[in-house]
């Protein structure tokens, strides 16, 4: 098997994938350290007539006037925020990406909004890898009646109209908000991520099951059985590594789709609630700002570019990762 270190080396030789991986790393870093960066507040409203156009950073880099806002921040974020105030005082970046109609800095909103998208992506990845792969592999390997029932469950879930389910769940959560939050610590956001997890593993389960069904009949699995390997061992050593390629490809398709799903739900007002930001909310704001009199193009372009570049990078990394893991790929020696 290609070990982790080896795959890592292969990936480093793939210049495109490596560049994109570094880019994703930077995005993740920026997203995690959002309170530390000298960004304006993403929610502070400045009353003004029109959105302010982007200013090139070399024309105007910093402005004074940062004031902490009154959002609830987690403990770590609050510490980072204090540190930021010690470091930068009231200095903040000029609106490099412009501001929206309420005077909120777009760059700051994009950075803060990336947290939602990244969390959604993590929820989906986790559900796909843990639930989807296991479900599909077990169904494929067990075959027969077990397979049939497990796949019917997937069919049933997939045939649910998820938008209605989300509306329903969020309605319930809205109704029993205080109680749920108090007893189980469940709030709207948790439900939101759970729903995203619940939809995202289904395709993975199907693909993995199909692949496992084919592999189960393969000669090398037969050979492993003749050698006396147990079912779990065959699954872990012989079947799953051979499914890796499909898994990686499926993830690179799933993550963009959940990011879009997040954006879509937030766009509909079912996802993240203001004052929190997400790329979906930004896109929604951007489309609202489109009017024939004066086009504030940056309001659409900034979230779109953020999302587009991250999704593109994810795809390139996924592609590179699949090649890096495949011993038959030319150049992996």
């Amino acid at each position: 098997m290609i070990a982790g270190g080896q795959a890592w080396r292969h990936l480093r030789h793939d210049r495109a994938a490596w560049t994109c991986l570094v880019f994703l790393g930077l995005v993740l870093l920026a997203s995690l350290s959002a309170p530390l960066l000298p960004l304006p507040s993403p929610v502070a409203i400045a009353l003004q007539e029109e959105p302010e156009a982007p200013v090139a950073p070399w024309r105007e880099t910093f402005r004074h006037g940062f004031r902490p806002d009154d959002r609830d921040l987690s403990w770590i974020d609050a510490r980072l925020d204090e540190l930021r105030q010690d470091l930068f005082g009231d200095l903040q970046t000029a609106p490099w990406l412009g501001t929206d109609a309420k005077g909120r800095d777009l760059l700051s909103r994009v950075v803060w909004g990336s947290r939602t998208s990244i969390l959604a992506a993590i929820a989906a990845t986790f559900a796909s890898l843990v639930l989807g792969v296991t479900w599909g592999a077990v169904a494929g390997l067990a075959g027969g009646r077990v397979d049939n029932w497990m796949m019917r469950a997937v069919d049933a879930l997939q045939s649910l109209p998820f938008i209605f389910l989300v509306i329903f769940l969020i309605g319930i959560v809205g109704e029993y908000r205080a109680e749920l939050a108090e007893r189980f610590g469940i709030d709207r956001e948790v439900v939101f991520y759970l729903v995203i997890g619940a939809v995202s593993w289904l395709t993975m389960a199907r693909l993995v099951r199909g692949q496992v069904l084919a592999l189960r009949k393969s000669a090398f699995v037969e050979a492993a059985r003749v050698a006396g390997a147990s079912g779990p061992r065959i699954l872990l050593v012989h079947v799953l590594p051979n499914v890796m390629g499909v898994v990686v490809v499926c993830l690179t398709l799933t993550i963009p789709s959940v990011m879009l799903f997040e954006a879509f739900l937030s766009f509909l007002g079912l996802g993240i609630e203001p004052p929190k930001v997400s790329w979906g909310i930004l896109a929604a704001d951007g489309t609202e700002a489109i009017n024939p009199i004066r086009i504030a193009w940056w309001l659409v372009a900034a979230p779109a570019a953020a999302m587009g570049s991250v999704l593109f990078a994810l795809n390139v990394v996924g592609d590179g990762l699949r090649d890096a893991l495949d011993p038959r790929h030319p150049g992996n020696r």
Partner: protein
Amino acid sequence: MALLEVRDLSVRFEGRLATVRAVDGVSFDLEEGETLAVVGESGSGKSTLALAIPRLVPCPPGVVEARTLRLSGQDLSRMSERELRTLRGTAIAMVFQDPSASLCPWLTIGEQIGEVLEVHRGASPREARRAAAAALGEVGIAEPEARLDAFPHELSGGMRQRATIAMALLLSPRLLVADEPTSALDATVQAQVLDLLASLQARRGTAILLITHSLGVVATAADRALVMRSGRIVEEAGVRDLFRAPRHEHTRELLASTPLGIRRGGGR
């Protein structure tokens, strides 16, 4: 007592519309150190027979029945899956037709050979590696240490088949079931692989059940042969007798259908 005793072994596959009798009341004995060839045309049931002995026919849809299926006195037909698992790889091993398909493409040669040891002896990766290198050397692969880290696709067909043989014989099984071990190889390599099997057999006294469609292979490698047709054994004979005086019509047909040379000059 023979090493392998088979009496009235039947395998049928029950479909929704029809039942297929792939193996139909087959009986034979296999002695220690002997090579018994099973010949027959495609669909005669010989590969199913090969899979039925280590009880690897998928059930359902398959149904395996036997009055007796005994390996050195142990009744294989009554064993649980767990007991069978400990037997597979240690007492019975198998070599398949196409080594490029029967080796897992994601594991190195060393990992695959060592796996048998890890499964049955609980060996550490390092011990398994050392044993795998020794086994590769024994099947005539040059620089075995260097080949351990090769992936299957980096070896030639002949080397791959040698590696599967090394894997099968690692724990010195008493019975080796070889299902068309040379059919996917080119002619010169075929001869080498058969020689290798013969020399390993001579050294260890392994019994070989050699499934093949090629009478050429039977002539060079087997002591006795079973001729199968539609799931039944139509003739059982020593190799010499089979080529000199085939008794059954189907054997004569098979002999008549071989390329030149084997029919008259064959035997040992």
